């Protein structure tokens, strides 16, 4: 298969976590560690150590500064202050990310399904098409939405003419625009894992389901959906997590009242308030870990809906 096909292997990341592959053909001994070493060191040095540092930084005395240095005082108050000051942005981030993720599922499922079962010889081409927007810069794409949703542009005019929007209605600088941008930007991360799972389903299974249950909806619920679950879980994580931490869409497409937690963390770092920024970061990560854990357990043990 081609390179294009392989990018879709983003999906199985999840599935591989639980079962070791066929043990045949594996070598024992030190060579494994040796191959692992450089990458593992990189992860240790630049992922694990920084995470620990971040947690430490979140407990520094906030009266310090970058120039004068910080005191490590185990200042838990940072968390209390951060949540008091930035609670709304926090909740907003999670809600926007949730809506965007649901939108990605709604849009991504038909597309992934069409590529897996209906595209025939155009399968690879459609896959390339899903990946292609990746390669136009994220920011450039988002700016493009700024234009599309703009007050004087075609979309708004049409919606006004159709009375979907009032005569003074607008789209840009609204929560709608922010969620649209998030949905758009992370959609490929939903489509690819979903496709990777769907592709493994034997189409005859779906046919058999149609025979047994007659209703396409029942077939979908009892056959397709459970089998697509690993892809759906992976896609949800790959969409929800970056969306919750994003601030580009909020900044370029939103207004001051659509600010997300990412905006605040970025600004706090910019302003030199490292302890508060770090406390917010740690809280975000903790919230995500908890949500992901609950979600994966739930999705793993029972049907999602």
């Amino acid at each position, binding site marked *: 298969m*081609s390179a294009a096909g392989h990018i879709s*292997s983003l999906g199985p990341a999840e599935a591989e976590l639980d079962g070791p592959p066929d043990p045949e053909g594996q070598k024992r001994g030190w060579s*494994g560690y040796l191959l692992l070493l450089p*990458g593992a060191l990189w992860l240790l040095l630049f992922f694990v150590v920084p995470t620990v540092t971040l947690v430490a930084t979140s407990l520094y005395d906030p009266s310090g500064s970058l120039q004068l240095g910080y005191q490590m005082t185990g200042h838990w108050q940072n968390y209390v202050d951060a949540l008091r000051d930035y609670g709304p942005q926090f909740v907003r981030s999670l809600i926007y990310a949730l809506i965007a993720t649901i939108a990605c599922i709604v849009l991504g499922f038909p597309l992934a399904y069409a590529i897996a079962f209906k595209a025939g010889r155009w399968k690879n081409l459609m896959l390339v098409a899903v990946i292609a927007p990746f390669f136009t*810069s994220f920011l450039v794409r988002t700016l493009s*939405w700024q234009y599309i949703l703009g007050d004087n542009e075609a979309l708004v005019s049409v919606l006004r003419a159709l009375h979907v929007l009032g005569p003074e209605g607008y789209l840009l600088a609204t929560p709608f625009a922010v969620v649209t941008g998030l949905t758009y930007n992370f959609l490929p991360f939903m489509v690819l894992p979903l496709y990777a799972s769907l592709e493994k389903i034997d189409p005859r299974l779906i046919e058999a389901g149609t025979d047994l249950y007659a209703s396409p909806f029942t077939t979908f619920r009892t056959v397709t959906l459970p089998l697509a679950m690993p892809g759906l879980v992976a896609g949800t994580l*790959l969409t929800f997590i*970056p969306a919750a931490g994003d601030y580009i869409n909020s900044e370029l497409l939103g207004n001051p009242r659509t600010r997300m*937690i990412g905006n605040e963390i970025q600004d706090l770092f910019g302003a030199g308030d490292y302890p508060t920024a770090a406390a917010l970061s740690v809280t975000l*990560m903790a919230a995500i870990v908890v949500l992901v854990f609950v979600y994966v357990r739930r999705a793993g043990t029972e049907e999602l809906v």
Partner: protein
Amino acid sequence: MNTFSRWVGDRLILVLGLLVLLYMFVPIFVVILMSFNAPGSRNSYTFNGFTLDNWLNLCEPYQLCSSLRTSIEIGLLATLVATLLGTLMAFAMVRHRFRGRSSANLFVFLPMATPEIVMGSSLLALFVNAGFAGALGFWTIFVAHVLFCLSFVVVTVKARLSGLDPRLEQAAADLYANEWQTFWRVSFPLVFPGILAAALLSFSLSFDDFIITNLNAGQEVTFPMFVWGANQRGIPPQINVVGTVMFTVALLVVLLGEMGSRRRAAR
């Protein structure tokens, strides 16, 4: 009636899929169109007329080309290192048995499950605490980019490698190829499409990244940072030229690879 509704059902899902695909391309069309837009007085995002000026004077806006160069340099370098380290890790994880394999899996997955803002903050916290606050720049960006590309490389190459029958490598050993020869004559050529995909993905992730880069860039300006800054000053239409070129080049690479693998399959 039943066959009719099935016919519609069949087409419906395909049509829906194509509509979603169209949605994904709308902004790209806008970018391509705007790259030929003659700049208006106030807002460059209003189509005033066709021109090639933006293409011919790509480097006119201050810092555009230098930021582009920085991004490409970092992108290439980070891709090279991430692809190398990630491929080695993938080989270790699929072809070698060692203690702590499943924790290694989790360890590789975690960075992908970390929001960019958190990863960026952690790195910044590390650099600042380690006394590198003044040295933020090209190399700190490079370190960060290798980090977030690494997991994607491992996952992509691993997927390809797990699909590779270990008996092929054993057959090579049986036919007098030592470890080195087995790798270069059998494993590598067969895993190569996966490695290429991983490299492409790495480059696009690196070239695209703003949030992590912005926190760790110091005085360095990458292309996304240039665009960000420009958004506050007024966006030069040339950025759409860059977007168009990136899109076209990537599409060409992928399509050429596609044709290559088809031709090889047909031979």
